[in-house]
């Protein structure tokens, strides 16, 4: 199961298309996503930094403070750059700039962490 935190519906449509075959749930804000993680721990979180409400940094902070979410792999895909040291500090598995991302990057990350092939 992949939780995708992205508040731009254009990007949401994009993920839906290229990650067909994966079980996905979309969240437009971090508060709702964290609440959902209480119910079910995802195999992978794809996270944008600029979200409606708390930023992706706040979500990462929150996730890492819960033992059951601390090890969940997070892939940051954002227009905002994230410094290596910050990514390392939060244990972010991959960081992609939206301006340079390739669909194959997303598909590979989903396969690696969610364990399924995109359809």
């Amino acid at each position, binding site marked *: 199961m992949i939780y995708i935190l992205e*508040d*731009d*519906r*254009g*990007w949401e*449509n*994009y993920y839906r*298309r*290229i990650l067909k075959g994966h079980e996905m749930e979309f969240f437009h804000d971090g508060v709702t996503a964290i609440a959902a993680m209480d119910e079910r721990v995802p195999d992978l979180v794809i996270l944008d*930094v*600029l*979200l*409606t*409400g*708390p*930023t992706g*940094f706040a979500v990462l902070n929150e996730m890492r403070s819960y033992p059951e979410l601390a090890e969940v792999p997070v892939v940051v895909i954002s*227009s*905002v750059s994230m410094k290596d040291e910050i990514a390392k500090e939060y244990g972010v598995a991959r960081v992609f700039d*939206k*301006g340079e*991302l*390739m*669909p194959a990057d997303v598909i590979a990350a989903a396969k690696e962490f969610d364990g399924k092939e995109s359809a």
Partner: protein
Amino acid sequence: MKSEVFGANSSVVVVAHELKAPLSLMRQLALSLDFEESVDDAREVGRQIVATSERALQQVNDLTRIARLDDALFEMEPVNPRVVCDEVIAELWQLFRFNRREIEIDYRNKRRLAVANRQLLYSVVYNFCLNAMNYGGEELPSRISVYDRQNKIRIDVRDFGPTVPTKVWREIKDGFVKKPVDIAMRPGSSGLGLYIAAKFANYMNSDFGLVRHRDGTSFYIDLPISGQLSLV
């Protein structure tokens, strides 16, 4: 919130970021065409690319106009606000559809003309609608209304998203909108569209403001009524 992400300086960075968003999306959509299985799906992606690029072009055009406000002649003329709103909706409906958003129309004004610059008014309404699209929820459609208010015609666009913080409301109310980041009121946006709207409203000597609701926000512009009768 924005300064945490963008750093203290920022108008240029914020504008660049805002323009990067549609460019990045268009690039991804174009790359994702390889994954489409049917011609219809590919056409749908093509339509989304066009709608996204038109939005970016509108923002670039608006920024150009802002740079020309001091020396350009944007003449005031009698304008039918309903026609301008209809044109904006016609332009944006595809983008609303791709974002799974709806907007409804509520025209209640007498058929009188307003005094405005048609091009600038179009941009104001366009940016109000874009803002509503970004922040409106999926449950309730945003609403564009035109109605008479004392001796003015008001156009307002109501959304049902997170309401605007009091600090930002005061900035807009007091006319302190100096740069995009000043009205980065709701995360996910630099407030560029509203900055543009505020600049154009000010140029047209119109009142620009917002009303905070418990469940969203209305942005409005009040336009003087023209003495010329509408023939529409």
